[in-house]
């Protein structure tokens, strides 16, 4: 698993918070999300939103074929709401997943994404139908979250969300989905591992 958005305890120390993350403290004018995201259950304000770009790679079995799916620069908005964190898909727009913290929400989101692909593979009668259905799923936009995602990416650009320790990518990074037949002799042990990349989106 490749997880580039990795925070460490060093991020806490770098922010002069010896007691670790306990809430939406501000440091040098920035909200401290970096360590919160990956180390402890966070408690920033309700409504806090984190914009993500994700890249997932899956190998699946369909009826008579092995297929490789690479979804690049999908968009998701992670929001702390009244009960827990929710990862809302923007592209693909037709999915969401919750978790106790952003990391858990993303893990659930990743799993749900794979499950959708598996469900599609069980419903189609061939590769062409699978490819069309997956492309349609990925490219559907949840218009209800587009503006919030863009606003959160702008907050990254303005430095209102601390991205120390996190990789960022331009919010305009091109989105694509590639669905290809995979030769059986090209399948290897690496295909057993969920391959993913998660980046903060930053407005231009």
């Amino acid at each position, binding site marked *: 698993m490749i997880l580039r958005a990795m925070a460490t305890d060093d991020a806490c120390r770098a922010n002069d918070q010896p007691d670790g993350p306990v809430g939406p403290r501000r440091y040098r004018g920035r909200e401290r999300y970096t360590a919160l995201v990956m180390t402890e259950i966070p408690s920033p304000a309700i409504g806090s939103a984190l914009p993500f770009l994700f890249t997932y790679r899956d190998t699946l079995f369909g009826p008579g074929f092995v297929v490789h799916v690479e979804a690049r620069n999908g968009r998701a908005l992670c929001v702390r*709401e*009244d*009960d*827990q964190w*929710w990862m*809302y*898909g923007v592209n*693909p*727009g*037709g*999915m*969401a*997943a*919750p978790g106790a913290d952003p990391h858990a929400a993303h893990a659930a989101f990743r799993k*749900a994404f794979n*499950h*959708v692909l*598996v*469900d599609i593979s*069980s*419903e189609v009668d061939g590769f062409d139908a699978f490819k069309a259905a997956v492309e349609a*799923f990925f490219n*559907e936009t*949840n*218009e*209800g*979250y587009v503006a919030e995602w863009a606003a959160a990416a702008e907050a990254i650009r303005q430095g209102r969300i601390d991205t120390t320790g996190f990789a960022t990518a331009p919010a305009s990074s091109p989105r694509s989905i590639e669905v290809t037949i995979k030769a059986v002799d090209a399948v290897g042990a690496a295909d057993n591992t969920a391959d993913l990349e998660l980046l903060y989106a930053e407005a231009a």
Partner: protein
Amino acid sequence: MPRVVRLKDIWAMLDACAPGHQRRATDHSWRVTFNGRTYATLPLGPHGRRENPEIETGHVRAMVRHLQIWGCAERHLTLA
């Protein structure tokens, strides 16, 4: 505790707000399609499909935003 909505209440809301919608259970989730848009991850319920499970409201919020029926849906369910 996560806020929840009963599945039967979600179906009633969809019947009112998304007439003609289609829904079907897959191995992992309910798939709800309306006006060419599909919400693919509405839970079946804890431990698989159940008659009238509790569904976390975040899924409902995401679904009604995606299906573009928010205004109608919030007259039927508490979503905010």
